[in-house]
């Protein structure tokens, strides 16, 4: 019963081998340009002396797609948009060729402006003339009626069979047209490279005799079977912070409210675990200045880390977000928070005398001893991070609410523990915790918490069903599926059953043969449609999911199933 978790991060790639709730082996290697070889190197180290056929399950978390997007290493994507009336079209600036086609659907999926065929032909021709081979076709309210998108995509494929086409309603069914455009564009941009990556991983694992199911971690902390994930490559962005958060969840007792503080070289990642479950962000993730529909944990990246440079400006000591190499005590050019920790005896990294030298250069002109300067620097880091944590809690409390019960349910919660993971954690955590009035915790295996998080992550599936009995159709947001429904007396119970049925269907589709016994209902809303004082139909809005959770807690004595 062996479980493997691998997290390919920006600097390090970590792997762990879990054996019945115990960490049997772990490995940490430098991440190289070639992500696949780093991944395999860590895997081989962790698997040393263990036969591949004992492995039950492998979960990966990788920065592959994040890197592609941030470094813009993808083929350009042309956009065929059908926005119709509403916001000025000037808002639709996505730094790529954008071609607007007249036509519009409304919020109930009724056609309000038919697609203008001639202008569609012209747009397609212009786009091809400009050399785009990857195309995203996105319409406003396409998740309520996908006909226009399908028509444009079909025409495009007819004229240019080599084009790779993505349609908005299949990528992102949630409301928010601009985010749907971005999600579709990025899916289109990354799919081909991602498919290649997935194939390579599968081949490499089978060469090692591992034929257990392989999963990939998503930004929301759930997993997907690796082969199926090629449909939704962008869901794997920001899985690193999700991995650390799940790792902390596995390494701390269930039910606690904690802040996860992952202090790295140049950034500190923060995440919240409220009463034992990681907090999801209320809006989709933002990447490279683009707002997407990708569901993600509420994580925040603060530009301060162990290697951030520290400088004296006049009578002030200031921390900058840049890194100019390693800390001074490890041969770097500038003083850093790590040097301060070294002087205070809170870390053993680097050379003590060089660290004193660095702090002396900062403190001497201000009449401070190296120790005082080191204290000052540490306090700056602690204050910055503590303030950001406070802000995260306030922002969570101030999230919009659209229902009476949601407003009444608003609670105020503060962390009972501050959990440190990552390289720079040890020196700062106890003081950050003290500032917040919480207990500091640095769990065992903190340096590989991310890989542990990957290893214990579980598949999650959701279904959002919208039924409009008056228009006579229903749609499944996650599948981009729309179908006629000819039953004016369709009941709420039937709607719930339909949603559960689709949850089962999706489980089959993704090869998750888990029994869908536990269906969690997140939202069930019924809207009576009344026209001229007569009830003419109902709109049901139903959101169900499989329970979110992790395999088990590490070292808690319980066995991982």
């Amino acid at each position: 019963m062996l479980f493997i978790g691998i997290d390919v991060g920006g600097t390090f790639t970590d792997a762990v081998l879990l054996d019945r709730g115990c960490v049997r082996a772990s490995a940490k290697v430098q991440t190289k340009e070639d992500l696949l070889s780093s991944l395999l190197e860590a895997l081989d180290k962790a698997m040393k002396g263990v036969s591949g056929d004992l492995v039950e399950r492998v979960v990966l978390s990788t920065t592959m797609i994040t890197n592609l997007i941030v470094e813009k290493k993808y083929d350009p994507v042309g956009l065929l948009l059908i926005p119709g009336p509403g916001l000025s079209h000037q808002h639709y600036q996505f730094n790529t060729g954008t071609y607007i086609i007249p036509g519009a659907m409304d919020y109930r999926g009724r056609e309000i402006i038919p697609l203008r065929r001639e202008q569609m032909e012209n747009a397609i021709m212009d786009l091809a003339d400009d050399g785009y081979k990857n195309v995203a076709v996105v319409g406003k309210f396409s998740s309520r009626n996908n006909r226009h998108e399908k028509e444009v995509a079909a025409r495009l494929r007819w004229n240019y069979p080599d084009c790779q086409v993505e349609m908005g309603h299949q990528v992102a069914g949630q409301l928010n047209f601009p985010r749907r455009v971005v999600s579709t564009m990025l899916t289109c941009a990354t799919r081909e490279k991602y498919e290649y990556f997935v194939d390579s991983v599968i081949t490499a694992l089978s060469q090692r005799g591992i034929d257990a199911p392989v999963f990939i971690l998503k930004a929301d902390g759930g997993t997907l079977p690796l082969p199926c994930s090629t449909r939704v490559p962008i869901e794997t962005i920001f899985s690193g912070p999700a991995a650390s958060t799940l790792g902390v969840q596995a390494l701390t007792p269930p039910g606690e409210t904690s802040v996860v503080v992952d202090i790295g070289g140049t950034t500190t990642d923060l995440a919240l675990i409220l009463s034992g479950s990681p907090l999801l962000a209320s809006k989709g993730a933002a990447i490279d200045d683009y707002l997407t529909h990708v569901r993600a944990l509420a994580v925040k990246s603060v530009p301060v880390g162990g290697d951030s440079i520290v400088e004296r400006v006049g009578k002030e000591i200031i921390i900058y977000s840049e890194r100019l190499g390693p800390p001074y005590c490890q041969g770097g050019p500038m003083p850093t928070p790590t040097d301060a920790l070294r002087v205070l005896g809170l870390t053993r990294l680097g050379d003590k005398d060089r660290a004193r030298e660095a702090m002396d250069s900062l403190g001497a002109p201000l009449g401070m001893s190296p120790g005082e300067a080191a204290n000052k620097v540490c306090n700056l880091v602690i204050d910055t991070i503590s303030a950001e944590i406070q802000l995260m809690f306030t922002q969570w409390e101030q999230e919009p609410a659209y229902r009476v019960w949601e407003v009444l349910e608003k609670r105020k919660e503060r962390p009972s523990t501050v959990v440190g993971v990552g390289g720079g954690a040890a020196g700062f955590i106890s003081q950050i915790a003290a500032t917040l009035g919480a207990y500091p915790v640095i769990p065992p295996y903190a340096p590989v918490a991310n890989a542990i998080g990957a290893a214990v992550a579980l598949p999650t599936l959701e279904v959002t069903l919208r039924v409009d009995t008056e228009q006579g159709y229903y749609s499944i947001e996650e599948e981009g599926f729309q179908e006629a429904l000819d039953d004016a007396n369709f009941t709420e119970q039937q709607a719930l059953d339909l949603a559960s049925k689709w949850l089962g269907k999706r489980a089959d589709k993704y090869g998750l043969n888990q029994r869908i016994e536990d269906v969690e209902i997140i939202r069930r809303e019924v809207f009576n449609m009344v026209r001229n004082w007569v009830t003419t139909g109902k709109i049901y809005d139903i959101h169900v999911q499989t329970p979110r959770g992790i395999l088990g807690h590490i070292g808690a004595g319980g066995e991982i199933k």
Partner: protein
Amino acid sequence: MEKKTGLIFFPAFDWAISPTHPEREERLLYTRDQIFEEGVMDLPQIREYAPRLASLHDIARVHFCVPRVQSQVTEAHLIAAGSALQLGDAVVSGDIKNGFAMVRPPGHHAMRTVHGNRGFCNINNEAVLVDYLRRRHGLKRIAIIDSDVHHGDGTQDIFYHDPDVLFISFHQDGRTIFPGTGFSHELGGPQAYGTTLNVPMPPGIGDETLEYIVDNLIVPVIKDFKPDFIINSAGQDNHYSDPLGSMRFTARGYADFTRKLNPDMAVLEGGYAIETALPYLNLAIILALARLDYSYVLEPDYWPGRFTENAERASKVHRTVDYLRDVWEKRNSADIDNIFGKGDFYQRKKFIYYDTDYIEEEQIEKVKKCSNCIGYLLIESRGERGYRAPVRILAVTVPFAACEACQQEAYDAYHQAKKKEQYDYVYMQDKSLDTCLNYERDKNHEWSTEG
């Protein structure tokens, strides 16, 4: 960077007056769809706020709820009013340049005395905001412009004797629509003559005439009045597709009005064309507040030139506007004694019908014609529901900057009324001290709240 426009969107998807009532869960569903699909909340010019609850004292500062606040409000009412306060705080503190509380339930038909629900309203969200801003932030002069198709009779009632609150309402002629008031001769009491202005419009009036009202009455009067804060009571049922109103305003017309008025805050009121108007109107108003281009917002069944104004009806409105402009300009030289009569008090008798709750109220309202302050108010009211004994109350209001004599007299009146058998409840609303008292005869008990 320029300041943002603050939004609170509170559609109350779990609150309705009754399943088929126009004020039901569905009302803002399509508006939600439209503004979320447009990605409005992601625009850099927009900041979304969470709603909060108003306190019972915030309500008591404005209303005499019979028998008490808790019996007239649901949580939804407190959230709707609280959302207005939340944005009001953010505007005054300078966090945002203006705000739009897109909230249910509405409030502009709720008068000072509340026996029940009338015109879908229990609590007047704008009035709660006005007195909160004056009490909490020390604002003095506030203008409320009501753009609902129904006369904002509740708001008018609450500020009828208050010269520091300018109330202008344009609406469909009261002879053809609920609540049947809002005529051009309703101009405020003797202590506040001319700070209530009503423009009744004959059915069928459109954008062009709205523009005339804005340019020739609203904008110049506001310029004269110099308010510290402008509130738009943003009813949306003047729209051509509204099932309750008979006017012909468009989304574009509403947006132009919003741009020219440039209010500090807008608070959603009525508007029951939940599919054909609200999604487009709300979007256009948000864009206008954020000073973004709203020219792409078009109702699906509208084309420029679809409506032409009826010249005769339009000129009727023009004449009303000209008359009110004249009243406004001569308000300080008006012969108040001639209009309102002589004596220490001005008194009026009101019959108020609560259409939602079938309550009939008879009221005598007296205002002290004080020359040192705006005078205290005495209200004697009797509310009758068919199936039970009528409820009789006496209520006293002491204004913000009350003089000592008025304060003394008002408290005397309150204490005397407590001794009289005929009143079931006696109320004191002292805005100068921010204290509210509520006496219940049967229990011989007095409750008080303080801000």
